[in-house]
């Protein structure tokens, strides 16, 4: 029951944060240069039609009223219409969100698959040549921007060896998995370097913890100590780390989608920025922030379930 109370409180905090996020985005969008009415009307603009358009868009009301409407619209998922594409923003989200979720989900999964075993190899023999090699590779990938990792993979695996498509997405779920593999790997490589570095450190701490000494002194086999005493604690820090890095994962997805021409929310955001399509930018940024918040809540849940101390 404690668990539910804790998560309920966290949910409240997150909702409050999202409202503030909305305020920030709303404020930023009011600062956008150019009059959206002018942009919508283009060459046909007359003073009368501009005034009419201002009224239609609600721009002639007070800022407070506008913000309140923005909030209500966000909650009710009425994100307005795209200026350039003339479709509701929510339908763009409906098309793009599954792709972005699949991409980031695959990336997180691959990153764990890469980082966790390597962190163990590294931390079990600190100072060995394996440790040195793993840390060197991690250091190099830490210094590689996501778009560059993507391009290198594209050049070698797609353009060179023709193992993967150069971009876009497939037709149906399983083809999507195939099309999204390279972009997910791109994101995963960049994320796993961060995970690996921190996980190695926390594993080293756990391995030197007194409870590992006590477990050894009780005569437990090494394998049992690792799987029961070390791994359990390592999961807590892995999940925490993953949560801390969700922002950079989503940021990376924006870039990766651009590099691989994937029609997800990230590329849509960039395209809309260049098109000055501010309802879309506003709506998408909100959706991305909510996505991050949901992950925060998930991480909190897993933490409470994994670490009994949290539920106190």
């Amino acid at each position, binding site marked *: 029951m404690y668990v539910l109370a804790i998560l309920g409180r966290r949910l409240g905090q997150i909702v409050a944060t999202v409202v503030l996020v909305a305020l920030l985005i709303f404020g930023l969008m009011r600062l956008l240069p150019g009059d959206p009415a002018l942009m919508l009307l283009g060459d046909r603009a007359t003073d009368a039609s501009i005034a009419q358009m201002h009224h239609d868009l609600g721009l002639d009301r007070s800022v407070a009223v506008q913000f309140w409407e923005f909030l209500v619209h966000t909650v009710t998922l009425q994100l307005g219409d795209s200026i350039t594409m003339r479709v509701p923003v929510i339908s763009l989200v409906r098309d793009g969100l599954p792709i972005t979720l699949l991409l980031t989900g695959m990336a997180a999964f691959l990153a764990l698959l890469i980082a966790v075993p390597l962190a163990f190899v590294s931390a079990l023999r600190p100072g060995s040549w394996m440790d040195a090699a793993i840390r060197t590779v991690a250091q190099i990938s830490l210094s590689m921007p996501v778009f*560059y990792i993507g391009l290198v993979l594209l050049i070698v695996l797609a353009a060179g060896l023709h193992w993967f498509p150069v971009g876009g997405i497939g037709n149906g779920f399983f083809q999507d998995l195939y099309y999204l593999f390279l972009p997910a790997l791109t994101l995963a490589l960049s994320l796993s370097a961060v995970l690996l570095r921190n996980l190695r450190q926390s594993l080293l701490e756990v391995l030197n913890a007194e409870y590992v000494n006590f477990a050894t002194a009780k005569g437990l086999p090494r394998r049992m100590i690792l799987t029961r005493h070390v791994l359990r604690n390592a999961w807590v820090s892995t999940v925490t780390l993953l949560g801390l890095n969700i922002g950079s994962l989503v940021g990376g997805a924006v870039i990766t989608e651009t590099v691989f021409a994937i029609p997800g929310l990230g590329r849509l*955001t960039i395209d809309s920025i260049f098109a000055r399509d501010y309802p879309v930018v506003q709506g998408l940024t909100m959706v991305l922030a909510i996505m991050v918040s949901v992950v925060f809540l998930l991480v909190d849940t897993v933490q409470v379930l994994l670490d009994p101390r949290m539920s106190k």
Partner: protein
Amino acid sequence: MSATIAARRRFVLPPWSLLGGAAILLVLLACAVVPEYIAPYSPTNFDFRSLLQPPTLAHPFGTDNFGRDILSRTIWASSVDLQIAIFATLFPAIFGTLVGSVLGYVGGWPDAIFRRIVDVLITIPFLVLVIVIVAVLGPGLGNMYIAVSAVNWIIYARLMRGEVLAQASRDYAAAGRVMGYGPIRIIFRHLLPNAVAPVLVYWMTDMALEILLGSSLGYLGLGAQPPTAEWGVLIADGKNFMTTAWWMSIFPGIAIVLAGTGFSLLGDGLASMLRRGR
């Protein structure tokens, strides 16, 4: 006590990571300051007799679609990217450190407001926020500095706040209060010098991060604008020639990796030196 004194008296070589990082950065700095003496060709001269040449001895990094030498363009671009490392971090580091130390010491409602701001800003992915701000201000290096500075100081402030909080609970800070010193004196004369080490280390890491961010924005077309040669822009130039002229994108990227590694190593080395000094 005796152990630390003995360690200080002995001459210790700085950690190899510090030396390695410094060496890499010195090379890049030379490229940035005097590219004309280092680059074999002009970075801007078109040479239509050697378009899209693969790497050869004459052009180790190959040439681009206008016949420009990519090695020379990469060298000339160093100055822009090193500038990014400095200009994108200078204000955040200084302002964030000051704000963080005051917040950590004063606490109360300013601190509560600050924690709310942090909550909000970690909810919007850093890159997305910077991109949106750049979109509002318009693409370009100057606006990118403003966008990054507007967000990035929070990270320094948070780091510094935590450090100061930890230091303020120690006895010497209490001793300062007992002595009747004012908060300004306690913060800036006593707490800040003791808490600033992690911030210095993070600054180095952050320079690497900002080069990555700057080149990403350059790649997207929101950062440095062509014809300014910036590593990310150079890579973007090569994207359309990915299948035919891979060298156009690959080589400028190596410069980014090099710069990132240089700053990270410097940060790591600094960290282990500070640990040893304690």
